[in-house]
């Protein structure tokens, strides 16, 4: 008996990771909060650790309205010009 595989028959679209940072000391941090309860508080705590341990500075707080959808392109473009790396995560 011959069975077809039920898996996707189209190639997986390529996803590109940003290169790893060579160092984090003294870098500029952005925070992207997702609107979930406690998100901003949790991300601020994480950012504070980078400030305390690595001398980073928090430059911007961006928000997105839909926690489970990608951030709007213009939000990311704008933030990317101001910071070296961005912290985001769920906050339920």
């Amino acid at each position: 008996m011959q069975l077809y595989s039920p898996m996707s028959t189209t190639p997986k679209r390529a996803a590109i990771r940003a290169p790893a940072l060579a160092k984090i000391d003294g870098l500029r941090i952005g925070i992207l909060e997702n609107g979930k309860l406690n998100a901003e508080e949790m991300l601020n705590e994480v950012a504070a650790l980078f400030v305390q341990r690595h001398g980073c500075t928090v430059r911007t707080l961006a928000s997105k309205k839909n926690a489970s959808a990608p951030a709007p392109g213009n939000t990311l473009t704008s933030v990317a010009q101001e910071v070296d790396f961005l912290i985001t995560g769920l906050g339920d």
Partner: protein
Amino acid sequence: MAALSPRIHEVPDDLLAAIDWCYEQGWTDGLPVVPPAVERVKAMLAADARPAETVICKHPATGLDLSLHAAAVNAVMAGCLPEHFPVLVAAYEAMDQEGFNFHGSTASTGGSAPLLIVSGPYADTIGMNSDVNLFGPGNRANATIGRATRLILRNVFQMLPGISDKSTQGNPGKYSLCIAERSRGNPWPLLCEAQGYPKGTSSVTCYAAGGFCNVENHGGNTPEQVLGSVADAMANYGCITLGQSVVILAPEHMQIVADAGWSRERAQHFLFSAAKRSVEGMTDVGKYRDREYETQHGIGAHALAEKGYIHRGLNPEDILITMGGGDAGGHSCFLPSWSRGRGSIMQHKPITVRS
């Protein structure tokens, strides 16, 4: 992007062994599947004249695409007949629209199940159930179209329970959740008509449903009493959010509402007005948020949004209401949205037979 050739597996020529083999591959939802034999898949594909590699839906997070071929394989596995295939295809074309937020609703802890509501004459053409035991069991089209929807999420988009599907408790609808809108005796325009499709065109509406809540009322004799019970379910502290709602009125309840001259729009307005909780109450249970209150009461707020209260949804149009179920019984239902806000908006598409 060109499609890869569909992979074919040689398995022993024994049906029961093939069912077990499908289990071993991790292709099932826990129930036995129909082994997707090549000839059976080809018969399913004949229900859509487009090339088999045609992509009908893309999963934004996994980067995986759904082709007609892969949809047909999973439809066979679910037990669908070829005449069911146009509904499945239309459902995925609907969920491919950005507003549905395909990734969030399939990965979230919230345990969403895609509810499919088939409206219009095609439901009768393929023998769907819109009547007694609406949500099942017992009807092949309802059960298998809904099941195929879920198998695609698992097998094509790799939304695997515990790995990429992080539902805290899941949802029985994640096996299958597909119904037909009842046209017999329905006093209101069918959904497909309200959605603006030409006469004779059927549609499927897809909604990321968070569960199912029975609304029993055998004593109410007025629209306010019947719909008041529905509104209370919509506004219970466990369910109330700014998300959308689906309400399926039982024929008995619909008769009470429609005989009093109420239109769908009037019922929607009543439900939006009545499905609310006070800010104080929301605060007491820990669910109040300034941001949500401002969303509902700030610029663009609906006139029925009452100060000092959180309503379910943002406006009356957020509440889909129609009729379904058997003639006897004061049992309607409310299905809350998975989304707590605008994370997923219900979508619809016409059902097109392309064979």
